[in-house]
């Protein structure tokens, strides 16, 4: 019970968002990741043009993630009180940035279709 296990974490996340929403979000994240793998396999290469746009969009995703967390938790940047707070904030930023970059890459690939000239 007191032990730290995956089951405990899953139980807590299910309670946090509700079982349906939590697994829907997991499914969405998995679907986007699979779509990314799909377009990589389909195109047989990482398109540097799409990757550049994805990279440029990273700050947008990072800032959006930080903003979302602050709003949802009645917090502001002035509440950061120690190193761990900065690390958590960077973690949120990084997660938002990477997630959004993958999403942008996938959306470009799916919308523009397979590159004709590569």
């Amino acid at each position: 019970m007191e032990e730290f296990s995956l089951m405990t974490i899953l139980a807590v996340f299910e309670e946090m968002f509700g079982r349906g929403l939590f697994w829907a979000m997991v499914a969405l994240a998995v679907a986007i990741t699979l779509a990314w793998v799909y377009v990589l396999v389909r195109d047989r290469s990482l398109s540097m043009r799409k990757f550049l746009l994805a990279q440029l969009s990273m700050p947008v995703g990072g800032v959006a993630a930080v903003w979302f967390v602050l709003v949802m938790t009645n917090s502001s940047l002035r509440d950061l009180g120690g190193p761990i707070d900065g690390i958590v904030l960077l973690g949120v930023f990084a997660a938002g940035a990477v997630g959004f970059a993958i999403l942008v890459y996938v959306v470009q690939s799916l919308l523009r279709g397979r590159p004709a000239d590569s």
Partner: protein
Amino acid sequence: MGDIDKLMASRRGFLGLAGAGGAALALGGARQGQAAPVRTNARILILGAGAGGAAIANRLSERLDGAEITVLDGRAQHWYQPGFTLIAAGLRGADYAVSATERWLPRGITFISEYAAELDPEASRVTTTGGQRLDYDYLIVATGLVLDWDAIEGFDLSMVGPETGISAHYASPEMAEKSWHALDRFTDEGGVGLFGRPATEMKCAGAPVKICFLAEDIATTKGNRDRCEFVYNAQAQNLFGVPVIHHRVRQIMDERDITYRYEHVLRAIDPGAKTATYATPNGDVTDRWDFINVVPPQRAPQVIRDSGLAWADRWTDQGWIEVDTQTLRHARYPNVFGIGDINGVPKGKTAASVKFHIPVVEDHLVAEIAGAEGTRLYDGYTSCPLITRVGRAMLVEFDYQDNLTPSFPGLIAPLEELWISWLMKEVALKATYNAMLRGRA
């Protein structure tokens, strides 16, 4: 109040929740060490379906096969008490803390929606308020405590609200919301705000301090700090029972110009004159207020006090049951265990304590039924995300010895005001609490 609020899930678990999902995956998943259910036909009676009662019912129904488990509780609503502080600070509505009691109970048990009217531990029998007679082999007392509002002369719960400036957020989710309206008005208009705690043992001893800090922060955010005066009245010669935490709280109160007084115990209020009378070593002191947060003395329910389970020579005006401080088994009736606020142990009437009581009681009870002896011991661990303002808290954790027992040493400093500690309270705590109720955390 469970502002334990406190139940940092597992002591090692929360950072994982905060972000290290990968680490969790690396642990490889499944819950370890869960033995096959123990076959028994024991009759187990659980008094109370609050945090302790619901959680142990779930654990026992998983660990035991064939046991006749009965849960007795007359209240249809389950209250997430750690949320009361957030409601009283205007961050949540009353419904945040309300759910249906039955929702948390496992299938295959008997739930009786009545209270215990009589408890006879000699005969191992409980009579309900509806007159049912329940014989048990094992009894788990998880009734919680009662708030003795009548002990505050001149006070009545109907007075709570913005018109009077009276706040009583311990009473219920609905009262916590009314208390917010009182606080909202006070921090708009200014004046003198009185805070404090009773002289009895109490649930979440940090909660009166939290609401004082939050009130000061809310007034500051509104730009009205210079019109408000804050006075915190401690019942003892300290602001918190654990010395190192006392000093930290005192330091923060000094920094934020909150007045504190020792050995001031609220005994009467006059809502008409807007005065409060405190018992002090030098006699009564009466002060005027524009806002007052009332936290009353707290005691065991009468049926427990009348049962013979209480300590005979300790807390005689309060009636907490005489359990071993480490095994939580009753000192005189070995088939009786206690979980949560009702336990007569030196510390911790919090949901965090409940979380750490449960595996101990589960272990000793299941082991005995299996013909063995339990080994787990409770060290007095409790914790409190001590909110210091909206957006920051200190994650204080301690044990019977007044030792600090940080779950994340080197990462989350217990006496530092941190955003991550606030996130735990604001985001992760209720989820962890709910998982605990279901016997899953």
